C-alpha cells in the first residue's frame, strides 16, 4: 500500500518559475525528496542546471533547467509543451519577482513597467496559458507567491506592493476558475524571508528561513488552503495593518 502511494505521488510535475530564488530552491528540494519531476525555470541557465543536478541527488524523478524570462512571453510555450510530455498532474509554483528600491523608481519611473511585468503580468500571462492544460487534466495546483507588501500600499515600496496586489487578485480569480475543474490555487504571502532580496534590508524582524516557507507551502498545497501567510503570524500583523484607518495610515511610515 505504502509503495503504491509512493508511486502515485511520483506522478507529479512541478513547473517552478523563478527557480534561482532561495525560496524556490528550498521548495524544489522538498519536492525532490518526494520524487517529483521538476521543470526549473529562470534566466540563469547555469545556475538552474546546478539546482537540477542537486534535485536529482535529492531524489527527484526528473529535473530539467528551462529558459524563462518573465518579460519575454515567447519563452513560455516551450516550457508548457515540455510539461505536457510528463504524465500525471501538472503543478506550477511562481516565485518570479523583482523589487527595485522605491528610490530607484522615483528616479526613473520607467522602472515601473519591468516591476509589474516581473511580479504580475509576466507570471499571469504564463498561468493564463497553462490554465487550460490543468483543466484538461482535471486537476493540479498553482502556487502563487505574492507578498504581504501587496496587502496595503506603503511609502517604502508601493510600486512593488501594487504589482503583488494585482497578482494576488489575479490568483483569486484563477482559483475561482480552476476549482471548477478540480484544480486549486494557493496564494502565498510571505513576510520577511531570509533571501538575497532582503539580505541588506534594514529593520527586518522575525525573519523566516526559505526552508520554513517551502514547508508551509507544501503543507498548504496538501490541505488545499486558499491564502496563506508564512510564517503564520503575518496574518495577524497584516490584519492590523489593513485595518488602520486611511486617515491615520497616510501619515505613517511603516
Amino acid at each position: 500500500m505504502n509503495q503504491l502511494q509512493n508511486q502515485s505521488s511520483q506522478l507529479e510535475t512541478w513547473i517552478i518559475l523563478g527557480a534561482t530564488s532561495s525560496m524556490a530552491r528550498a521548495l524544489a528540494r522538498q519536492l525532490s525528496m518526494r520524487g517529483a519531476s521538476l521543470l526549473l525555470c529562470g534566466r540563469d541557465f547555469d545556475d538552474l542546471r546546478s539546482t537540477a543536478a542537486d534535485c536529482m541527488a535529492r531524489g527527484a524523478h526528473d529535473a530539467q533547467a528551462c529558459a524563462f524570462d518573465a518579460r519575454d512571453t515567447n519563452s513560455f510555450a516551450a516550457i508548457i509543451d515540455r510539461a505536457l510530455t510528463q504524465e500525471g498532474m501538472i503543478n506550477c509554483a511562481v516565485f518570479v519577482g523583482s523589487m527595485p528600491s522605491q528610490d530607484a523608481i522615483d528616479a526613473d519611473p520607467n522602472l515601473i513597467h519591468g516591476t509589474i511585468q516581473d511580479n504580475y503580468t509576466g507570471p499571469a500571462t504564463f498561468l493564463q496559458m497553462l490554465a487550460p492544460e490543468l483543466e484538461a487534466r482535471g486537476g493540479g495546483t498553482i502556487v502563487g507567491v505574492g507578498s504581504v507588501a501587496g496587502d496595503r500600499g506603503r511609502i517604502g515600496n508601493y510600486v512593488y506592493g501594487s504589482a503583488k496586489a494585482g497578482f494576488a487578485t489575479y490568483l483569486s480569480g484563477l482559483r475561482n476558475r480552476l476549482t471548477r475543474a478540480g484544480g486549486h490555487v494557493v496564494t502565498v504571502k510571505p513576510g520577511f524571508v531570509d533571501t538575497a532580496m532582503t539580505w541588506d534590508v534594514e529593520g527586518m524582524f522575525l525573519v523566516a528561513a526559505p526552508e520554513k516557507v517551502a514547508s508551509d507551502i507544501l503543507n498548504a498545497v496538501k490541505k488545499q488552503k486558499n491564502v496563506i501567510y508564512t510564517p503564520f503570524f503575518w496574518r495577524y500583523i497584516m490584519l492590523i495593518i489593513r485595518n488602520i484607518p486611511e486617515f491615520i495610515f497616510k501619515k505613517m511610515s511603516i
Partner: protein
Amino acid sequence: MSWKTLETTGWGRAHTATGDVARPERATQLKRLLAAAMMPAFGMRRSYGDAPLNSAGPSLDMTRLDRVLSFDSTTGVVHVEAGLPIGDLGRMFAAKGWIPPVMPGTGFATIGGCIANDVHGKNHHVVGSFGQHVIEITLIQGDKSRKITLKSAPNLFKATVGGLGQTGVIASAKLQLAPCKGDLMVLTERRIDGLDDFFDAFDDSRSDYTVGWIDATAKGANLGRGVLEESEITSGINPGSGKPKSVPFNAPAWALSAPVVRIFNELYFRRVPASGRTSVKPITDPFFPLDTIHNWNRLYGKAGFNQFQCVVPLDATKCLRIMLERISASGLASPLAVLKKMGPGRGGYMSFPMEGYTLAVDFPNRSGAAYLIRDLTDLAKDAGGRIYFAKDGVAQAKQVEGMYPDQTAWQKAVAKADPDGALETDLVRRLELRSPPHTVTPATGGNV
C-alpha cells in the same frame, strides 16, 4: 550584490568580528564578487575560535552555495558546492550506498570548511583525513577560477587542504565517497577506568570508528577515566531518530560550574553499565552526537567557551597525564572532553593530524581558562605535538611557531596565491601564521 554589516562569531562565541558580509546564492555572483576583490570565506562557522572571522575587511558567507553538482553512481565521485553541510551529504547518499569517508564531529560543517581545516573523524586511524579523499578543488583567485588536483598543482593543493582559506576561495570540490554497508551503526560503549587503560584500549581496538569520552574532572586514581565508544556501520531497519531539540536561550553561569560538571560526568560515566553495552543507532547519531541539540553552544552562556585540542606523539603519554592533572585541578573543565588515537594521515602542509593521541576539552570562557589553554599549548609543543587551529581562539603567535613542520612550504604557496594578504582571517593574524619565523623583533611580550 548587496552587503550587510554583521557581527559574527565562531561556534565558541568567545570571539567576535564585525564586518561587511555578502552571501552569494549563485556561482556567477561568487565569481563577480571575488573578481572585484578577494576576501576570506566562511561557512557554518563551526570552527570554535576566530578561524572563520575577519574584522579587518569584508567576508563571504558561502552557506547558500550548497548544491550537489554531479554524482557518478559507479565511481562514487560527487561534486559539491563548498557551502554544503557534510551531514546533508551523508544523509543524501547513505541510502544510495555511499558515505563521506571522513566526517567530523558535527554534520553542520561545510565541505569548504572540512577542506580548509582538513578535518578528521573517529575513523582517522583507518582512513586518514578529509583532504586525502578530495579529488579536485575549484579554487577562485581573483578573476581566475582554477581546478586543482594533487597531481596538477601539488603545492597549491597541499597549501589549500588544511590551509585555512589562505590560497583562494574554495567554490566547489570533487570528493571520493566510500561504499557504505548500510545506514545503521552498531555502537559499543564500555567504561575505561583510567588513562593507561585508555591507551591499552585504543591499541586493542579493531573498530573502524573509535573515540573516548573522558571525565576531565576526575583526579587521582580515576584520572583519565571515561567511556570508549567503538562503532561499525551495518545495515538493517533504521529506527529513525527523534526530532532535534534546541537550547532556546543562554544558560546561566552556574549551569556548567565545577560541581555541576562533576556530578554530570559521574552520571555520564555510570550511564554505561560496568559490563559495557551495545546498541544500534541511525548512522548520523554516533557521528554527530551533539547535532541533535541545536545551539548547544548556548549552554556555555553569553560569554561563550573555548576549546583546546592538541595532538601529541604516541610516546607523549606523560604529557597527556600532566595535561589532565592540570585540567582537573583547574575546576574549569566542561563535560565535553575527548581522547582519540590518530593515525598519520594528513592531506596538507598545515593539516592538524599526526600519529599520536589527540585530546580535546571545552572550557567555559571564564577567568583562568585562557591561561590554562596557553599552558596546555606549551605542553603540547614541548612534547612535539601541535594544536588544532579550527578550535583555537587564545594561543599566542610565538607559542605556535615551529609547531607545524611544513609551515614554510605553506607560506610560500600562500604568498604566491594571495600576495596582498586579502584572505587573512583574525586567526591567521593573531597567530602570525603567514609571517616568516621571528627574525624580526618579536611582537609584544604578552606573557601570561
